[in-house]
């Protein structure tokens, strides 16, 4: 209840939450209850597309937590998303069983193709859904913990931190491209069949996945909102504004940073895990530095330090990406590049900032 009161204090925030809830419930319900030819029925394409946006929104929000509230511009946030996705992908791979091209009961196709005889140790346990879900949060969380612990303890800040996070995702990109890593090389993991025994292609499963994505987003939103309003959240915001002062006041800055960084990485992992079954593939290109930078654009576009701004930004940018890459494929990078420039120079507070300014000028 306290969560809800927190969430409804701000009008925009409440609106976003309501829209989210509406989307989360209405689209799957429409699909489950109406026949395929009804006008209320959404196509499978639309459902998985909007579902994808929801996972992106979750990813954007998790970055907003570290960037908008803690001032850490992480340029490797996509790596956590991809790791979560890979954990999910590994579970789905193991579910294929004998239905692969080579029909090996244990090994995924690409391992048979590479002439591997047994499953690498890090693949064990991924046939268990619970274990896989645990890894979805633990793998990105552990990476974030090790990386963050090293970086924050030695007080690597600002652009240096941005650059080494970028190097991190770049190194992972290179690593996952290698066939020897045992993650399917540049083809990645795909050709999924089942999730928990249900056909992953079926409309009902898609609707459920969509619903789960929406639910995860709402829960994460409320959770983040709550965190930012606790004492921890306030200290973190203070770190963003005046790091040394907070340190001199006796707070262990690196611990606060680490906490928020790891939490955000886990959220990103969840987003990745929800993303993979909806698009049906995970490959190393998710690690490209450009992907991580795109997340930054979503957040900047929506308005950082607001959480719901990141949601708005992720949906707006990705929706325009879908539309524009269809209409004029060459123009997308021009527009994305232009967005970077225009937002940073003219709209430092993003869409949310613009709306607030409008409201204020109306009131005045």
């Amino acid at each position, binding site marked *: 209840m306290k969560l809800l009161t927190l969430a409804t204090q701000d009008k925009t925030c409440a609106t976003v939450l309501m829209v989210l809830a509406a989307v989360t419930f209405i689209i799957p319900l429409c699909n489950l209850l109406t026949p395929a030819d009804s006008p209320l029925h959404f196509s499978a394409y639309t459902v998985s597309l909007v579902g994808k946006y929801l996972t992106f929104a979750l990813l954007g929000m998790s970055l907003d937590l570290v960037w908008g509230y803690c001032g850490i*511009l992480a340029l490797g946030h996509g790596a956590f998303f991809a790791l979560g996705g890979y954990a999910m992908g590994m579970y789905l791979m193991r579910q294929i069983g004998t239905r692969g091209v080579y029909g090996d009961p244990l090994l995924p196709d690409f391992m048979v193709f590479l002439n591997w005889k047994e499953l690498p140790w890090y693949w064990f346990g991924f046939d268990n859904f619970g274990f896989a879900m645990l890894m979805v949060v633990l793998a990105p969380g552990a990476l974030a913990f090790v*990386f963050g612990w*090293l*970086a924050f*303890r*030695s*007080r*690597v800040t*600002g*652009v*240096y931190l*941005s*650059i*080494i996070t*970028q*190097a*991190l995702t*770049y*190194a992972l990109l*290179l*690593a996952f*491209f*290698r066939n020897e890593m045992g993650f399917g090389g540049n083809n990645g993991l795909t050709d999924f069949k089942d999730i928990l025994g249900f056909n992953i292609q079926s409309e009902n499963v898609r609707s459920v996945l969509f619903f789960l994505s929406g639910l995860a987003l709402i829960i994460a939103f409320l959770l983040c909102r709550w965190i930012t309003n606790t004492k921890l959240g306030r200290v973190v915001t203070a770190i963003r504004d005046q790091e040394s002062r907070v340190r001199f006041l006796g707070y262990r800055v690196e611990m606060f940073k680490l906490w928020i960084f790891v939490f955000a990485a886990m959220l990103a992992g969840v987003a990745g895990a929800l993303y993979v079954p909806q698009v049906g593939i995970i490959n190393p290109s998710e690690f490209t*530095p*450009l992907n991580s*930078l795109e997340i*930054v*654009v979503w957040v*900047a576009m929506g308005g950082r330090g607001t959480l719901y701004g990141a949601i708005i930004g992720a949906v707006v940018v990705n929706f325009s990406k879908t539309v524009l890459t269809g209409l004029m494929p*060459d123009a997308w*990078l*021009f527009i*994305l*590049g*232009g*967005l*970077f*420039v225009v*937002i*940073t*120079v003219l709209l*430092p507070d993003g869409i949310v900032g613009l709306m607030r300014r409008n409201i204020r000028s109306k009131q005045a």
Partner: protein
Amino acid sequence: MTLFNPTRCQALLALLMLVFSLAAHSDPQPAPQPWLDALDTLKQGSMPEREKAIMQLADIKDAHNLAILQALLDSKLFITKTDARLVIGTDNHQGFDLSDAVSGASLGAVGHDALTKINLTNKMRGTLRKIIGELELSADDPKVRLAAVKAMAKEADEKAISLLRERAGQEQDEAVREAIKVALLLQDMDSEDKAVRIMAIEGLKAYDSQEAANRLNAMLEKDENGEYSEPDADVRNLAKASLTNINNRLQLYGSIETIFFGLSLGAVLVLSAIGLAITFGVMGVINMAHGELMMLGAYTTYVIQQLMPNYLGVSVIIAIPAAFVISALAGIAIERGIIRFLYGRPLETLLATFGVSLILQQSVRSIFSPLNRSVATPEWMSGSWQINDFLSLTWNRFYILVFCLLVFVLLLQILKRTSLGLEVRAVAQNRKMAKAMGIPTARVDAMTFGLGSGIAGVAGVALSQITNVGPNLGQAYIVDSFMVVVFGGVGNLLGTLVAGFSLGIANKFLEPFAGAVLAKILVLVFIILFIQKRPRGLFPQKGRAADS
């Protein structure tokens, strides 16, 4: 970089000489009668006649004759079906480009079925090879002689050996003389006489010859009956010692080669990072579009080559100043248009310049197509410097290394000796104070950014010589160059140099054990860990500048 740059003049001279030598080649020479007769006999269908003709041709020692024999051996000598002319044909996939065998004049192209090939027996091929070897052995060009000696050493018979011995007495060129010595020593290894064999093995110890190493190895191997091919144990021991000797040197050369590769990779890293070091170090500005400025430089090289396709050697030299100007102008435009609104907000600068990089990439993709463009390497940069059998260094990488050092020294001098350099350093140390002293900081910022960007363009010219020129060229180097700057210590050009070279060498030494990709990952991980330990790089700034 004026028109009368010495390097440019040299390239021009080389070009002139090339044209001249081509002209001399196609000049119809007065042909002696016996030669023409022999060529006529060659056209005869019967094998004994042809063999006779070949023997006759063997006595005529001139370069043109050599070319005909070589063509005959390579199955490139034909008789035209229409007018029974002897021609040399080069396959161009659709047909043959012809030139007259006697006069050397070009005869245009014909289809595949317009010619009859002059067939040879295996025996004739063998004879031909030897004749060519002999002719080459007395050629004027030491390089041709050297190649001939090496070819003869591999399959030497009595006659070849006596030829080599004869040649050894009159040979002037040091390298050829050594090669002959090795060839003769190799021959001695097959001698019946144990003492001669021992002498040969002892003698071979000092030479860096692949063939010698192979033969020594063969001596130590057992055949299928478990017998050594070399019966004598003393000789075997000696051979083992000689082989170790050679192998030790081989390892040394291997290391030298790795260091060279590392240095050349380092040179590329330094070139790409040094412009960044200026903008990042001096202005505290993260320019994510730096890689794309390099890409602009590479495309400038491409365009200039397209404009002057006949002067490849010169076009690369012209491209250097052109790329500098174009990238510098682009850089100044970025600084004036975007970055100056964002000073003091490094993270925003990073994002905005990243946007610029996307726009630049897509512009290039739209203008030049998304496919890679190939930039030709001029003649004076291609090929390699063959030091001995085991060690050869490619010229293009060598030149890039030299070029990198030149650019570095030039840049240091600019920063040290020019008034712009003085102002740049002043602004870097204390912006406010510099402004109070009357330094126009806005102008200095623009100029600094222009300088850094221009150097990126120049780096692009170098890159165009070793990798494909495509829209993604910049992206491939951006992470690396940031690593170099950060590793070296921001605001320290020397640090950038040291960091670039050490990362390059480290990468190349790791590659044999770990593979190229893993080596790169290891280096990245190392830097990430290094930054944790020393957040300000190898050579951190000291004093007040470090606080900001």
